[in-house]
């Protein structure tokens, strides 16, 4: 009923408009259609009321508005993705092509949206009707937010039928489920580390810093040589959050960091202030590139490519925009230790896919998801973009030396967290990252910034 009301409302307005516009008039066709109706009547039989159900076939004329884009025989699976960077885009297109080739009757409408725009637009996608079927997203809290609001379709059946419960390490199932029900499909994960130009380090006689003091010393050497020690692009803010994550974990331990993310610790705690004070040492040593806020994270890779900058704290995906000819010149090292007595925490975010609760084609979506989580798709991913797979069935011989080293790095950690904006709530992440930007602009404001963050934390986590 509701639907037809909406459509008639729309048509009234549309037709009023369209009647005179020959140029843009959709074809209005009168079609005689046989309509089968199930009619329930109440009939009086011998004084008693009996419900009779019968099937009535009628012919009626239905006015159909034919809009060209909607003439599709098979409902495609609508797949919206944030993989707008060239390398990931190429991989994803290949993966979808492989799926369609194997399933010629299941077309996929694959839309790639600018990564940063997607993060904002997903609110609109999820409440739209129909919503897109399959979406790219981040595992953990950022997915949990949608799950709690009933916007994500449960997919325990897919986990079951595809055998993922056995083939994925238990941790991935744990981060995908709420109350025993799985909602998310993690397909890839990666490590964070400080990536650097091997040749620049060699030329300046630097070995990969293992401690904080060595990092500061490396900055001073590089700065003295007229190079940019560390490049970073903070236009979209989250790159700076990585520095906060790591300094906090190295200084105060990963458990404190996680508690802070969950709103259980105070931002005015002296331990948090110590993080920013430590961070200030990097500014004092002239570690960072000037005008970081002008660049996206990819913009900031340019100086690394051009040999003007030496280091970049980034996830493994930094390799995507690294120029082919210097790929072999890039290596990485674990974020330096500040206090050896503190357990080691690492950022290792997991990405994947989910199906929207309001999806128009949940069956098709589940089928596509089944493929995405499978060995074939994950193997393609390992080969194309070098992320780490979640499926145990991917042949470990495929891993490059760099990937092996990345796995070791994570295995050597006492605790693994996701990332600042994935571990805390979206609102706290927004004010937190704004605070970091304000700090970056003027480090002397630490106290005022932290007081503000604390006020926000109290408000946000009060509910």
């Amino acid at each position, binding site marked *: 009923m509701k639907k037809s009301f909406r459509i008639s409302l729309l048509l009234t307005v549309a037709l009023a408009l369209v009647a005179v516009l020959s140029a843009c008039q959709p074809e209005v066709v009168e079609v005689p259609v046989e309509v089968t109706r199930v009619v329930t009547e109440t009939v009086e039989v011998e004084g008693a009321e009996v419900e009779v159900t019968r099937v009535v076939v009628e012919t009626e004329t239905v006015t159909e508005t034919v809009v060209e884009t909607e003439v599709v025989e098979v409902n495609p699976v609508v797949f919206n993705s944030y993989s707008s960077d060239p390398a990931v885009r190429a991989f994803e297109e290949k993966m979808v092509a492989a799926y369609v080739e194997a399933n010629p009757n299941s077309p996929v409408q694959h839309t790639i949206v600018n990564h940063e725009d997607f993060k904002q637009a997903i609110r*609109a996608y999820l409440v739209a009707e129909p919503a*897109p079927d399959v979406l790219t997203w981040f595992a953990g809290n950022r997915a949990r937010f949608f799950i709690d609001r009933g916007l994500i379709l449960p997919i325990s059946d897919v986990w079951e039928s595809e055998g993922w419960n056995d083939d994925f390490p238990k941790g991935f199932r744990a981060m995908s489920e709420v109350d025993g029900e799985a909602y998310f499909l993690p397909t890839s994960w990666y490590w964070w580390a400080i990536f650097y130009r091997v040749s620049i380090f060699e030329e300046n006689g630097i070995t990969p810093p293992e401690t904080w003091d060595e990092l500061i010393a490396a900055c001073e050497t590089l700065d003295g040589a007229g190079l940019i020690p560390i490049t970073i692009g903070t236009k979209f803010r989250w790159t700076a959050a990585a520095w906060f994550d790591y300094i906090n974990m190295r200084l105060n331990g990963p458990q404190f960091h996680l508690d802070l993310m969950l709103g259980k610790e105070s931002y005015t705690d002296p331990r948090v202030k110590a993080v920013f004070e430590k961070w200030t040492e990097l500014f004092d040593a002239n570690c960072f590139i000037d005008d970081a806020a002008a660049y996206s994270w990819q913009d900031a890779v340019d100086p690394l490519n051009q040999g003007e900058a030496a280091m970049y704290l980034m996830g493994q995906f930094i390799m995507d925009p690294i120029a082919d000819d210097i790929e072999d010149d890039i290596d990485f090292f674990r974020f330096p230790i500040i206090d050896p007595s503190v357990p080691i925490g690492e950022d290792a975010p997991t990405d994947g896919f989910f199906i929207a609760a309001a999806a128009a084609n949940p069956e098709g979506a589940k089928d596509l998801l089944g493929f995405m989580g499978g060995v074939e798709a994950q193997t393609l991913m390992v080969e194309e973009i070098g992320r780490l797979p979640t499926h145990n069935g991917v042949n470990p011989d495929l891993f490059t030396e760099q990937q092996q080293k990345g796995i070791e790095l994570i295995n050597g950690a006492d605790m693994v967290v996701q990332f600042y904006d994935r571990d805390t709530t979206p609102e706290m992440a927004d004010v937190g990252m704004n605070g970091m930007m304000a700090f970056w602009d003027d480090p002397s404001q630490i106290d005022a910034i932290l007081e503000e963050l604390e006020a926000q934390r109290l408000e946000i986590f009060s509910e």
Partner: protein
Amino acid sequence: MATTNLPNQPAKKGTQIHWGKVALFIFLLVFTIVYMSPFFGAIITSVRTQEDISVNGFWSIPTEVTFSNYTEAWQRANVDRYLLNSFIITIPALIGTIFLSSLSAYALARHRFRINRFIYFMYVAGTLLPFQILLLPVFLLSNYLGIYDTYWAVILIHTAFQMGFCTFVLRNFMRTLPGEIMDAARIDGCSEWGIYWRIVMPLTVPGIAAIATLEFTWIFNDYIWALMLIQNDELKPVTSGLTTLQGQFVTNWPLIVAGALLAAIPTVVVFFALQRYFIGGLTLGSVK
């Protein structure tokens, strides 16, 4: 003294050199070149390769001139599709808004009725509304109507929102038409619709041409509604498509700038082809 010449007066003697004017000319020339430098710079960048610029810097002589950025933007980055979408959105919205506005403009200009002034002022006020405040409800409305993520959502909101300005301009234009013609037609038994369609509309053509040119660029250049109401890459107009381009070719400035320049071509063409109407439209809306 040359500068004391009255405006629009031709120089009295052609042989005489007006040094003041020469100075003004040189000033204007320099000013215009500096003023347009971002534009020229963009054009120069767009015909160079990323490599050339990053190695030699922008202020070097190009090692080679290439149009590959344009062909790549056109094909690989989907700019052709985006431009087509822009037209699919702009043209119906333009026709719709002008037609509907002309209806109310006719009633407001040529009929006395109780709420005439009220409606008129409502449209004038609506013209000045910061339309962003409609963003959230219009999103919900289009979603409710089931036209979210279709051309219709953008077409309808443009049609509705631009009606304020069009009604305002057309109403004032129609008021300047001689009333005698309409009276004569009425006496001849012409219906109200006939008067509107056969008499008033033809006389309003200059006004419509002017406002249509202007509205074309406004609707064509819209960014926020497209950003908000269209998600499918296949349906995006060129303005919001460009930001996808920016995401896809992050640091490839020549290509991004080439895409931006391609996106600007239709409005620039319309402006040059219909310059007289365009400026007429601007002044119609302002200088009564």
